[in-house]
């Protein structure tokens, strides 16, 4: 299989990705080099093991959740388009974008989409609520073995108490957004 990264990515594809994600031409080719260097199997897709090979990601307490965000429901491989789409959430907002008109589709890295992305890191079962269990799971990932179950439980309870407005003992997206303001 070829080793020349940029020649495998056609111009039309680059244009499509540019429109969808807002990355510039050179950023896309650069990230494509990155994608192919991570793709040890050289089959045009990344698996979870390919991500795990990045040491700085492997020691990140939330590493597994972040990796999961790249893979669509039930799939084990992600192609370059999917890779770029997820990365686009964290693309920094350029100055010339701030004055763009509001009529076009919302860019992937808008504030609302970024918050939605963060919300989904918590909300595993995608029911648009962060339940106590889901909160506990993420907390456990972040603190490791250093905090007891009871203490962790009380942190979770307190957080839900403070955020919950409609009394359903879970945090909805609207309540989540309000917290961040």
């Amino acid at each position, binding site marked *: 299989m070829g080793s*020349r*990264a*940029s*020649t495998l990515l056609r111009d039309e594809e680059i244009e499509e990705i540019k429109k969808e994600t807002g990355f*510039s*031409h*050179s*950023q896309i*080719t*650069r*990230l494509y*080099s*990155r994608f192919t*260097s*991570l793709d040890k199997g050289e089959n045009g897709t990344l698996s979870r093991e390919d*991500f*795990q*090979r*990045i*040491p*700085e*990601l*492997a*020691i*990140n*307490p*939330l*590493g597994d959740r*972040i990796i999961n965000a790249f893979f669509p429901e039930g799939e084990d491989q992600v192609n370059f388009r999917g890779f770029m789409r997820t*990365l686009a959430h*964290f693309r920094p907002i350029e100055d010339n974008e701030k004055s763009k008109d509001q009529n076009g589709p919302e860019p992937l890295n808008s504030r609302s989409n970024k918050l939605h*992305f*963060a919300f989904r*890191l*918590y909300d595993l079962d995608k029911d648009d609520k962060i339940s106590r269990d889901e909160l506990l799971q*993420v*907390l456990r990932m*972040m*603190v*490791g*073995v*250093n*905090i007891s179950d009871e*203490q962790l439980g*009380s*942190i979770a309870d*307190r*957080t839900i108490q*403070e*955020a919950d407005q409609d009394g359903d003992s879970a*945090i909805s997206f609207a309540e*989540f957004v309000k*917290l*961040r*303001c």
Partner: protein
Amino acid sequence: MRQRAQKEVSKGEEVCLSISQWATLQIEKGVKKQKALALENLISNGIIQREETSMEEEVAGQRQGCFNLADILYFSKKGFEAIADDEVTRRFSSEELISWNLLSRTNVNFHHVSWQLTVVWITGILIRYCLLMPLRIGLASFSILFLVLATTVIGQFPNGRVKCWLSNQVQMTCAALGVRCLSGAVHFHNRENRPQKGGICVANHTSPLDVLILASDGCYSLVGQAHGGLLGLIQKSCMKTTQHVLFERSEMKDRHLVRKKIREHIADKTKLPILIFPEGTCINNTSVMMFKKGSFEVGGTIHPVAIKYDPRFGDAFWNSMKYSVMTYAFKLMTSWAIVCNVWYLPPMVKEEEEDAVHFANRVKAVIAAQGGMSVLPWDGGLKRKKVKESLKEEQQKKYCQIVIENGTVGNGNVH
């Protein structure tokens, strides 16, 4: 004779450099200057600009000692930064160049631009494959033959000063020949600091060529992995006349055994200095990774050596997972040249209260500073192994310390 060779080499280098600068200019003209500048920035600064804030600054902010739903954003940001570009995996593949050096293997970002450039490139290919390569292969076969014959002959001699002197000369000559046929052009600096008998020579590792380069300017006992094939043949020949310490890779894990053998060797002041590469594996010459503390625990004088290759003429890094030894040697022979600077640094000794890890880091910093490379605390073994779980646990512990205040759990602040 050596100086004349050096002068010719420098002249050759200047010609090559001016050609490659012209080539890059052609490319820049073809690909609109702006885009090329942007590309250059990306390559030199990395794809992303990282904010170097610590966990404490980002997570704690104004409040101290409580958990906030937004803490997740710090970790996800760090995660995404690592996915886009990380410090470690980039050291395990060849360095990217800003200007093209007319080798198609480094031409990743540049496209076909003009027919003049293509003509120059094709001429380059003809020169490299039809002229330089056959010359080098011929020289290589001759030198290997010479090495095997000479060591067999000298091995028959009775042990004594004559045998030592002869074997040293043979090894140095063969190494020098080997360097030449793998297109090496080496500049040595500060030769007054060359390692003495009974010392340990420590250097950063980029390829097996490092050994040849150092051996062409001095005699060393080598500690390293036993290879098979052609490399194994060369190793066995060298073993006939000098005391080398060879290991299987599995044995290297037995650190006590390694230390014992090294200690015995340097205790004998008549034995040649030991050459060790504490990184344990080949790194791509842009940074120096973790030095394993084994060689720094045995005592004795450490002679640091910095080896820096000039990437503009050829890529010296051996990606052992991608290329076999023969493919690698072929790549070397078909580059323009492997230009290399070797600095001998003043000897260093472990201080009384210093522990081995601290000493190793001190030596590492000196080598990196001389060679103009960055310093990384990561283990070069991550090329093949997974990262240790304990590092993740450290991150989790750090987070806990921020979130918990005085052993009690603070209130989450909500505004």
